[in-house]
């Protein structure tokens, strides 16, 4: 039999096969990290600081230990290894020893036979604090008078200052607009709470079943804190209920392992929703000051920007977020003269780190607001101004990096501009189509429609010289008379569909229909993080490379030139062909510390949005009527999944535009619940019209371009621009609140 297998195989790249985990998920049988269970399992709970800044004078655990059902109460004294961790800079204690720097910082952990017992034990721990005035304003943190929150940091309260200098230092322009913009603190608000199950092992090590974005970076930090070699800290990916950046940092990983090793019993730790708001980092709030200069014809001459990011109490990824905000700080535009200073700060606010869009989101609200302001000053159409200055392949970024793959910024804008507009609201009015909905706040009186545009830029993969790689093991064998491929990586499926994609790549490369994806764990090398829109690129690249190695070996075995000619069952017989490959994208460079010059990024990705809104200008209520989006994805590896990313990413951008903000007052979170922190419901999300472009990047596997983040970046400024168009208000702060629209403030 010499069937041409590659032509009959379905579910290859470019197809949209159903998710392999879909049936389990709709049945409720998919095992998320909070669903795990083990014999004799104990429940963990965490004592957190009520103060944003305080010295710990003493901790008394005796009353907690005395509670029946409690097996362990552990503090900083019980951390077996180094009491410190951190993604980029280790600066955060596993359990606070002498000082707490944010409200919610973990101080002690408890294991008990029932979660309620554990919570009650936590309440019995007595901590004596000396409370200090918190540093809650990053502007104040910059001043010499502010207390230095991390005395070991050589730059005081500055985590990182990124400077970009390009072109003339003192350019002049015909038309100049300035603006100051503010971005509130957004939460990733994944639905599956932080959770995991730690199981002590006979070798003195521990197995941790965990929802995370990057198993190996967790493993490294957990092993250090436990004082164990990495091979004794084995991580297994449990079902992940969304991530969006919030699972890049550790939460309960070390705590659960400490309790399991101490009690020699499995320990499960699950945060409730309120605790989750304290248990992970958030999107950096930002203040952005811009000055744009242009010729009277509308050509950008210069952009000056000062960006201040509030990193909160610990560094997390503030350094990389600052680099993104700076290097992408002028947006997808050609600007000959650029000066950007971005500072990421320590304060006593909640720690901030990764969230979808990662620094590019904050900058985009600034530069897109400025482009609209500039268009108004020039009396130009805002889309025309953007197109006139749009980046294209061959142009140079403010870092000096030349864009060496398609950058269809102008085409994306044209596409969303040229789509038909939604019809006006029909009469008689259906309340469900009104701002305020069935609250019956208007029947159309005071409702004004507005249209706005936004376009954004994002780097894909890890930047600035980071050794960014993934590892894939691919195995081909005959099982039950049929060739079967097995793919093993440590890459985290967080909902995006990476498991589907890995199988599509294997089917495409090896022409085999049956592909199984092995559970992700640390028994194989690192896959890097499911972040930075990078996994299709990097783990996709690794799976393809491993398949190519397997294919080469099979062809050599058979003495053939192509798999199409082969009967794999016959060629393989009992033989197993297995190859493990580590794959890297092209290297990047660091940024010059004084000028920010350098080929720092691997790939750039772009999306544009048009937003149509109806605004009740009397009550300040907004209904987004429609979102149109155009995005270049290089190659739509799985077109349905691509649409899902664009729809979901746009929704998170809508949330930031009009509703999502963690309210922090004096360093304390005032709304840690889904009652008070609102995310878009199905009533808030409009229909979306989406154009997907496929302009191949010659440097990337299959020509693909990272998909997940760009739509989150451009939807926010488009919606705000539409509200401005409807109201005439300046709207310099997001999320936009009713009081901004009716003009009571800002």
């Amino acid at each position, binding site marked *: 039999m010499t069937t041409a297998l590659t032509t009959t195989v379905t579910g290859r790249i470019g197809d949209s096969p159903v998710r392999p985990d879909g049936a389990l998920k709709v049945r409720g049988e998919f095992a998320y990290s909070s669903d795990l269970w083990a014999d004799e399992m104990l429940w963990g709970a965490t004592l957190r600081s009520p103060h944003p800044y305080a010295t710990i004078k003493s901790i008394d655990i005796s009353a907690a230990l005395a509670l029946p059902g409690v097996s362990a109460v552990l503090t900083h004294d019980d951390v077996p290894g180094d009491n410190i961790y951190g993604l980029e800079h280790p600066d955060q204690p596993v359990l606070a020893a002498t000082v707490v720097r944010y409200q919610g910082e973990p101080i002690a952990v408890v294991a008990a036979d029932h979660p309620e017992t554990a919570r009650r034990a936590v309440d019995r721990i007595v901590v004596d604090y000396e409370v200090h005035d918190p540093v809650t304003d990053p502007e104040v943190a910059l001043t010499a008078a502010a207390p230095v929150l991390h005395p070991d940091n050589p730059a005081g309260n500055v985590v990182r200052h990124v400077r970009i200098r390009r072109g003339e230092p003192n350019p002049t322009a015909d038309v100049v607009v300035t603006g100051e913009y503010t971005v509130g603190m957004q939460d990733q608000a994944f639905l599956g709470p932080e959770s995991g199950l730690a199981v002590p092992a006979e070798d003195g090590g521990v197995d941790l079943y965990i929802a995370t974005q990057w198993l190996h970076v967790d493993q490294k930090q957990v092993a250090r804190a436990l004082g164990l070699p990495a091979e004794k800290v084995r991580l297994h990916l449990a079902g992940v209920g969304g991530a969006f950046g919030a699972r890049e940092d550790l939460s309960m990983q070390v705590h659960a392992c400490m309790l399991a090793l101490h009690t020699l019993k499995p320990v499960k730790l699950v945060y409730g929703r309120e605790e989750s708001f304290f248990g992970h980092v958030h999107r950096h709030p930002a203040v952005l000051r811009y000055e744009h200069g242009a010729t009277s014809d509308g050509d950008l001459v210069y952009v000056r920007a000062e960006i201040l990011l509030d990193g909160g109490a610990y560094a997390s990824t503030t350094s990389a977020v600052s680099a993104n905000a700076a290097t992408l700080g002028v947006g997808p535009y050609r600007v000959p003269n650029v000066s950007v200073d971005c500072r990421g700060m320590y304060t006593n606010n909640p720690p901030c780190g990764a969230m979808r869009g990662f620094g590019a989101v904050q900058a985009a609200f600034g530069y897109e607001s400025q482009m609209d302001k500039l268009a108004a000053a020039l009396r130009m159409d805002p889309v025309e101004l953007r197109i006139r200055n749009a980046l294209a392949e061959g142009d140079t970024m403010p870092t000096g990096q030349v864009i060496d793959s398609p950058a269809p910024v102008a085409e994306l804008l044209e596409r969303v501009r040229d789509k038909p507009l939604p019809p006006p609201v029909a009469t008689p009015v259906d309340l*469900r189509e009104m701002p305020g909905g069935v609250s019956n706040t208007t029947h159309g009186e005071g409702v004004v429609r507005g249209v706005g545009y936004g376009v954004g830029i994002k780097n894909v993969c890890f930047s600035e010289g980071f050794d960014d790689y993934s590892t894939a093991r691919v195995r081909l064998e005959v099982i039950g008379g049929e060739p079967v491929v097995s793919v093993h990586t440590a890459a985290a499926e967080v909902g995006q569909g990476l498991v589907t994609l890995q199988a599509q790549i294997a089917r495409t490369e090896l022409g085999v229909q049956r592909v199984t994806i092995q559970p992700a764990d640390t028994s194989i090398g690192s896959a890097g993080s499911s972040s930075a829109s990078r996994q299709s690129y990097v783990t996709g690249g690794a799976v393809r490379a491993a398949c190519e190695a397997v294919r080469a070996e099979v062809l050599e075995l058979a003495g053939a030139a192509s798999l199409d000619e082969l009967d794999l069952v016959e060629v393989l017989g009992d033989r197993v062909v297995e190859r493990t490959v580590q794959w890297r994208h092209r290297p990047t460079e660091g940024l010059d510390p004084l000028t920010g010059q350098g080929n720092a990024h691997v790939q750039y990705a772009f999306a544009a949005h048009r937003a149509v809104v109806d605004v009740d200008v009397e009550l300040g209520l907004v209904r987004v009527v429609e979102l149109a989006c155009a995005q270049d994805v290089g190659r739509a590896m799985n077109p349905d999944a691509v649409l899902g990313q664009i729809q979901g990413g746009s929704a998170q951008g809508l949330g930031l535009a009009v509703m999502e903000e963690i309210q922090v007052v004096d360093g304390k979170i005032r709304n840690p619940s889904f009652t008070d922190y609102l995310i878009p419901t*199905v009533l808030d999300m409009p229909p979306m019209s989406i154009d997907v472009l496929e302009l191949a990047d010659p440097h990337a596997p299959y020509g693909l371009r990272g998909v997940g983040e760009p739509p989150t970046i451009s939807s926010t400024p488009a919606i705000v621009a539409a509200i401005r168009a409807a109201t005439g208000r300046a709207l310099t702060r997001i999320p936009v609140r009713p009081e901004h629209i009716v003009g009571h403030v800002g």
Partner: protein
Amino acid sequence: MIRVTVEVNGEPRTADDVWPGESLLYVLRERLGLPGAKNACEQGECGSCTVYLDDVPVCACLVAAGQAEGRRVRTVEGLGSGDELDPMQEAFVRTGAVQCGFCTPGLVVAAHDLINRNPHPSDAEIREALAGNLCRCTGYEKILDAVRLAAGGGS
């Protein structure tokens, strides 16, 4: 401690040593081995724990375990029959309405209830019916597709 007896997915089930503060959600997930209903907010805001209680969809996190005594509960695990998915479950898989899937069990139950009440809902009716279920991954577009598919497929 109390004993709770509930009919779950057609079977009589009993949980012993239930602390009176436990929710129906906790008893289903931790005592009866049915973790399908999810624990995303545990205060009735997200709908991830939606189950039928005597044929009415409820947030299982808001029902005290004792309130379910003697009543009928149907969870997402009880919608299909054997290996067969319920048409609504099938539609969620086919349309790509599932990403991380944490909201899915609650949405499937809520959408299942909608189609039982209203076999051919308009988009506005679908949106209204699902307004109590949060999803953070999909932007809801493909969830609407799923419900339209299940409704169009007849029942």
